[in-house]
């Protein structure tokens, strides 16, 4: 009787342990599936997009878009993406860091600060195309900035603002109170403490957030379609540097533009297969840019966790 029970028990244990192994295998398969997707994605883009990128007649990187697939390139999109990113960076980074600092260092506990907090987390989950609609109504129409680099940059800046605010707060929060107390102890004011001690120490963490935000912004298409990115641009924006006084020109902010993901979207939506190869080429450029930025952010985060011990 006892022998029978212990046998049954043993069988049960074996059965349950087998489930452990089966589940572990399932987990590995699921991870592999994710990996396989990345590899197929990359492989497919390289396979389709390699030829137009390296062909010497194509001049993929120095040609404008063209109705003939064999002559089309991404120059306008590359310059456009760079210009829009500059605006996004200049708007989002100061605003995001300032907001993060305020919430973490200055804000007391009152209804207004908790309103801001709830807001930031809600903004992060608003679909990106809604930011496009906001940009269209406010920047393009209300402020009459038109389909310009400026409206596009500001729209994307609003989109990535929550990312920068959240990472700034996390970075600032991880600075020990002792640092601040030491600064106050020698008679520094709040802003002196924040700007000379807290901010420099939290810079690497903030930088991670900025890179993640920019990687997101560079791949965003939907809001820019709504605020009026044009796919077919055969000229470059005005140069920011002029030969005459005052040497710097802001004319480029008002120029129409296209960006890399928009260019890719235009090419992939065309029925001709030649354009699909171009789309793959553009996709390859895009994916390399975003993955490099994401990779850099992941590396920074990893370094940060390892190196800083307060």
């Amino acid at each position, binding site marked *: 009787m006892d022998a029978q029970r212990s046998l049954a028990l043993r069988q049960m244990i074996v059965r*349950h342990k087998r*489930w*452990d192994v089966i*589940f*572990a295998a*399932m*987990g590995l398969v*699921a*991870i592999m*599936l*994710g*990996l396989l997707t*990345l590899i*197929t*994605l990359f492989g*497919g883009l390289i396979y*389709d997009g390699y030829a137009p990128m390296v062909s010497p007649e194509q001049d993929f990187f120095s040609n404008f878009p063209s109705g003939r697939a064999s002559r089309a390139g991404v120059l306008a999109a590359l310059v456009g993406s760079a210009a829009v990113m500059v605006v996004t960076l200049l708007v989002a980074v*100061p*605003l995001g860091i*300032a*907001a993060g600092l*305020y*919430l973490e260092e200055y804000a007391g506990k009152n209804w207004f600060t908790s*309103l*801001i907090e709830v*807001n*930031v987390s*809600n*903004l992060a*989950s*608003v*679909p*990106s*195309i*809604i930011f496009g*609609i*906001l940009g269209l*109504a406010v920047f393009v129409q209300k402020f009459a900035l038109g389909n310009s680099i400026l409206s596009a940059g500001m729209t994307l800046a609003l989109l990535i*603002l929550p990312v920068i605010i959240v990472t700034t707060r996390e970075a600032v929060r991880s600075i020990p109170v002792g640092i601040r107390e030491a600064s106050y102890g020698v008679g520094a*004011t*709040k*802003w002196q403490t924040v700007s000379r001690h807290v901010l420099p120490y939290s810079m690497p963490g903030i930088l991670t957030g900025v890179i993640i935000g920019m*990687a997101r912004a560079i*791949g965003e*298409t*939907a809001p820019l*379609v*709504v605020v009026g990115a044009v796919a077919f641009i055969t000229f470059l924006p005005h140069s920011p540097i002029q030969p005459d006084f005052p040497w710097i020109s802001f004319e480029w902010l008002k120029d129409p533009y296209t960006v890399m*993901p928009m260019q*890719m*979207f235009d090419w*992939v939506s065309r029925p001709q297969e030649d354009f*699909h190869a171009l789309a793959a080429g553009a*996709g390859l450029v*895009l*994916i390399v840019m975003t*993955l490099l930025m*994401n*990779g850099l952010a*992941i590396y920074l985060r990893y370094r940060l966790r390892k190196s800083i011990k307060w």
Partner: protein
Amino acid sequence: MSATADAALARSTLTYRASRNMKERGIELLLLAAASISVLATVGIMVVLISESLSFFKDVPVWRFLTDTQWTPLFENPQFGIFVLLSGTLTSSLVALLIAIPLGTVIAVYLSEFAGFRTREMAKPILELLGGVPTVVYGFFAMLVITPLLQKIMPNLPGYNLLSAGLAMGLMIIPYVSSLAEDAMRAVPMHMREGSYAMGATKLQTAWRVVMPGAASGIGAAYILAISRAVGETMIVAVAGGMQPNLTVNPMQEGLTVTSYIVQVAKGDLEHGSVGYQSIFAAGLALMLVTLLFNLLGAWLRRKFRETY
């Protein structure tokens, strides 16, 4: 030091302090202003969506908007039945979630309970790259890789369909589920697992009956985020889902989603104030309300199932 010099020093210290305090106060106000921009953005979104939608609903009665079974904004006699777009959105989102939630959960349980330290540190960032790929690239992938593959199994599948768009979307969303759910599961204290192991439970039993219920609110939040992402995702459906408005829940068909409709209209030349222009805002409002609904549900879930240790 003479008394007058002392008094002068005290006075100059006072004015120095006063100007310093003013500067401090000014900086604080500046930072507060920056923080208020986020509130302004939200208010802006609501004002813009509602005010433009109001002028849209002057032309199209709300009741027709909710009950019409056709979405034909560019026809002679335009009809705006929002459920046509919502059905496309929900169909593609459902396909995406059927991929992302099971796979993401299995990955999260595996990484948190089964995998060693090194596997976890390697796998997590690599999977996060899946979420970093621009969505227009996923659209390309869905249209030119997934659809031809599926057509080998289902020869009747049209070139544009919600199924492959949903599948690509699901793959994209996996890291959102797996990373957040894994964080939640790792936050479950070790002694709860140890208690379970001490009773003779296996790893899977512990994961299923102790860790997952303990992390339920975090896992729920991860699912809700995944739903939000799927509902609001635009470029994948705009590229691979087709542009044909269909009131159907059959993913093997072409379909128009709320987001892909907005892209479709915005790509053409929009005349400010036209019904087409205003319909974007009405569609956007519908999208906002759906995501808001899920966010509220998420907040409620988190409150209801929050575990305190």
